[in-house]
C-alpha cells in the first residue's frame, strides 16, 4: 500500500475517495444497512480502484513529474455515474465511475465470445436482450486538462456553477470549463517579472460554496486574498485581504515559516473560512479582514522545538483541516498519528490517535494528551517521545454525519460517532 496523499468524501458521503503517492485512486462505498447485518451501516468497503496518473518525464527540463495525486474533488452527481477530478503536479483528469450490472446478449454480428459471425450465417435479425451480471465498477478518463501549469498544482476546486473549476499552482491560478480541455483562463498570476524578487507563493485556493464569482487563495506569508471574478478578468487585485497582525513578542526567525498557510476551507455556510498554519487553525469571518474570529492551537508544545523541526524539514509539513456538516466542529491532524477536533461553541477539544493498537473495530477511542510540563502523568505522552514520522496530513469529514476519515501514512482509518 502506498502513502495516502488525499482523502475526500463525495457530496452525499456515500463514497470516499483516496489518492496515493503511486498515482492510484481507491474509492470506498458505504454499506447499506441490511437486515442480516444491522451493524454494517457505516462501514465502507472498496468500490473501485484505478490508476489515475502515471509517472512522466519532462524532456525539456529533464525533470520527473511525480504521479502522486495531490488532490481529488468530486463533482455533484447528475446521473447514475459519479465524476471526480484528480490531479498530480501538472495534469488534472476528469474520471467517470459507472456501474455495470447488465450485459447485452444476442448480438447479430458477433458470437457470445465476441468473434465475428460469418455474414452468410446470419439468417435472421434478433434484438439483443439485457441479462444481469455481477456488478462491475468501471472508471474511465473522460477529460485530461494538461499543459497549463509551469509550477506544481496544489489545489483544485469545483465551482458552485458545476460547470467550471479552478486549479492553483505555486504562482498561478487557472479557471477551466469542465467541457473544454484545450484552453484555460489565467485568473491569478503572482509571478514577479524578476524571479529573484520572489518572496511569496500560493499555497491553497478554493471557490466559495455558493457564490460562483468568489474564490480565495492563501499564501506562504500567512495571508488570504478573496477575489471576485466580476471585478476584472485577471484577479491580481484582491477584493479582500485577510491577515492577522504579527505578535511581536513571539517573533523569531521561524515566524514566517510557521505562518505559511497549508490549507484553506470555506465553511459549508459560506460565512466563514478556516486556515491551517503550522501550529494553529484559525476561523475567519469573511466580513472581517483584520483578524480571525477564532484561533485554536493544535500543538503549541512544538513552538520551542521549531529549530529542530526546521532542521529535519518537519516545519514544512502541510496539514489540512476540515469542517463537519453543521460547521460546529473542525478537525486537523498532528504528529504521532494524533488528530484533533475542536468544538467551536463549547471550546472543547480532543486529541485522538489513529493507530492499530488503539483502533480495534467498534472500540471507543481514548482521548490522548501530550505532556508539556516536566511531570508526566500516566497515559500522557511526552513531547520528546512523539514520532514525527507519523503525521496525519489528510482528514475528511462526512458531509452530514459524524463519520471521519483519517489518513495515517499508508493506512486509512474511519471513525464514527458511537450511537447508543
Amino acid at each position, binding site marked *: 500500500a502506498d502513502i495516502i496523499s488525499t482523502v475526500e468524501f463525495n457530496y452525499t458521503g456515500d463514497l470516499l475517495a483516496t489518492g496515493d503517492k503511486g498515482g492510484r485512486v481507491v474509492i470506498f462505498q458505504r454499506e447499506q444497512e441490511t437486515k442480516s447485518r444491522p451493524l454494517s451501516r457505516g462501514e465502507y468497503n472498496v468500490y473501485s480502484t484505478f490508476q489515475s496518473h502515471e509517472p512522466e518525464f519532462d524532456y525539456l527540463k529533464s525533470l520527473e513529474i511525480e504521479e502522486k495525486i495531490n488532490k481529488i474533488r468530486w463533482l455533484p452527481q447528475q446521473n447514475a455515474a459519479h465524476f471526480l477530478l484528480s490531479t498530480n503536479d501538472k495534469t488534472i483528469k476528469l474520471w467517470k465511475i459507472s456501474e455495470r450490472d447488465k450485459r447485452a446478449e444476442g448480438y447479430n454480428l458477433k458470437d457470445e465470445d465476441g468473434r465475428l459471425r460469418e455474414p452468410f450465417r446470419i439468417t435472421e435479425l434478433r434484438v439483443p436482450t439485457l441479462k444481469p451480471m455481477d456488478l462491475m465498477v468501471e472508471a474511465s478518463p473522460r477529460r485530461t486538462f494538461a499543459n497549463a501549469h509551469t509550477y*506544481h498544482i496544489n489545489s483544485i476546486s469545483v465551482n458552485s456553477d458545476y460547470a467550471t473549476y479552478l486549479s492553483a499552482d*505555486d504562482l498561478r491560478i487557472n479557471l477551466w470549463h469542465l467541457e473544454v480541455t484545450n484552453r484555460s483562463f489565467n485568473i491569478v498570476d503572482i509571478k514577479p517579472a524578476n524571479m529573484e524578487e520572489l*518572496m511569496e*507563493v500560493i499555497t491553497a485556493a478554493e471557490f466559495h460554496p455558493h457564490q460562483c464569482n468568489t474564490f480565495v487563495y492563501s499564501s506562504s506569508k500567512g495571508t488570504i486574498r478573496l477575489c471576485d471574478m466580476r471585478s476584472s478578468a485577471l484577479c491580481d487585485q484582491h477584493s479582500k485581504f485577510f491577515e492577522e497582525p504579527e505578535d511581536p513578542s513571539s517573533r523569531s526567525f521561524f515566524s514566517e515559516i510557521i505562518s505559511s498557510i497549508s490549507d484553506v476551507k470555506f465553511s459549508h455556510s459560506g460565512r466563514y473560512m478556516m486556515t491551517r498554519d503550522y501550529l494553529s487553525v484559525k476561523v475567519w469571518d469573511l466580513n472581517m479582514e483584520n483578524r480571525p474570529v477564532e484561533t485554536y492551537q493544535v500543538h503549541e508544545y512544538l513552538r*520551542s522545538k521549531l529549530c529542530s523541526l526546521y*532542521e*529535519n524539514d518537519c516545519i514544512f509539513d502541510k496539514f489540512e483541516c476540515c469542517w463537519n456538516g453543521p460547521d460546529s466542529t473542525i478537525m486537523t491532524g498532528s504528529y504521532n498519528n494524533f488528530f484533533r477536533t475542536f468544538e467551536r461553541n463549547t471550546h472543547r477539544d480532543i486529541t485522538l490517535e489513529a493507530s492499530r493498537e488503539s483502533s480495534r473495530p467498534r472500540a471507543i477511542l481514548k482521548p490522548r494528551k501530550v505532556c508539556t510540563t516536566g511531570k508526566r502523568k500516566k497515559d500522557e505522552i511526552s513531547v520528546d517521545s512523539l514520532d*514525527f514520522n507519523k503525521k496525519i496530513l489528510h482528514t475528511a469529514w462526512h458531509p452530514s454525519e459524524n463519520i471521519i476519515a483519517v489518513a495515517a501514512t499508508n493506512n486509512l482509518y474511519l471513525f464514527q460517532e458511537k450511537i447508543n
Partner: protein
Amino acid sequence: MFVRGLKRKCFDGEEDIEGTLAGIKAIPSYNLQRQSLLDMSLVKLQLCHMLVEPNLCRSVLIANTVRQIQEEMTQDGTWQMINTQSTGQASLDRLVSTDILCRSSRDPAEGKHVPGYGTFSKDFESDQAQDSSETMSTASSVQAPRNLQSNMWEMETPQENKGNFQKSLDQIFETLENKSPNSVEDLFSEVDNSYYDLDTMLTGMMSNTKMGHCDSLETFSSPTNTASNSNCKSDLNDLDHIVEILVES
C-alpha cells in the same frame, strides 16, 4: 557544544536562558546560533537546488529566512565587520560549520570554546578562536545566497540548472582561487584530503541535518530521505571533479 557549562537551548528558546550563565555569554551564543541557522539554511537551499524537483514553497521560505538573518546581521553591524576582513580559509569553514549545528550529541567534556568539527577537523586549524573565523566566514556565505537566489528559481533547462549551480558553487570556491599559490598550499596542506570529497561532506551533512541536535530531542526520529540522498550523490559526483581541479591548481 558551545561554551562549557552552557545549557544548550533551541534557538528560539533563548529568552528562556535560566541564569545558568552570565548575560555576557548569552550574546555570543545568540550570534553563534544565528550563524548556525544561516549555515543550515544555505545548505538546505543548495540541496534544494540539487534535487530533481525542488519544492518552490519550501525554497522561498528558506530563502526568506536567510534574507532575514542577513538583514539582522547588517543592522547589528556584524555584517559590516565582515566586509573589511579577508575571508581567509573561512569559505571552507562555511561549508563545514553546518556540521556543528547538526550533530546530535556533544561531548560535554570537550572543554574548548570551539565546537568540534568532527571528522573534518583532524588537520584543520580548529584551534582558531571560533568567533573570528565565524565573522570572517559570513562574507562568502552572504555572497553565496545572492547568487543562489537568483539562480535558484530559474529552472528552465537542465544545462542552465547545472550551469547555475556551478556558478553558485564557484562563488563559494572563488576565494580559494584568489589566494596566492603559497597560501593555497599552506591552506591545503593542513587539511585532511577526505575534506575534498564534496560528496561525502555534503551527504554527511545531509544525514546529520536529519537528526535533532537539541539535548532534549535526542529521541527525535528523523525522516530518512535516502532517495534525495542518492540524488544528491549523483549530482555531487560532478562536483568532485570541480574540486579536484581546484586542488590541483
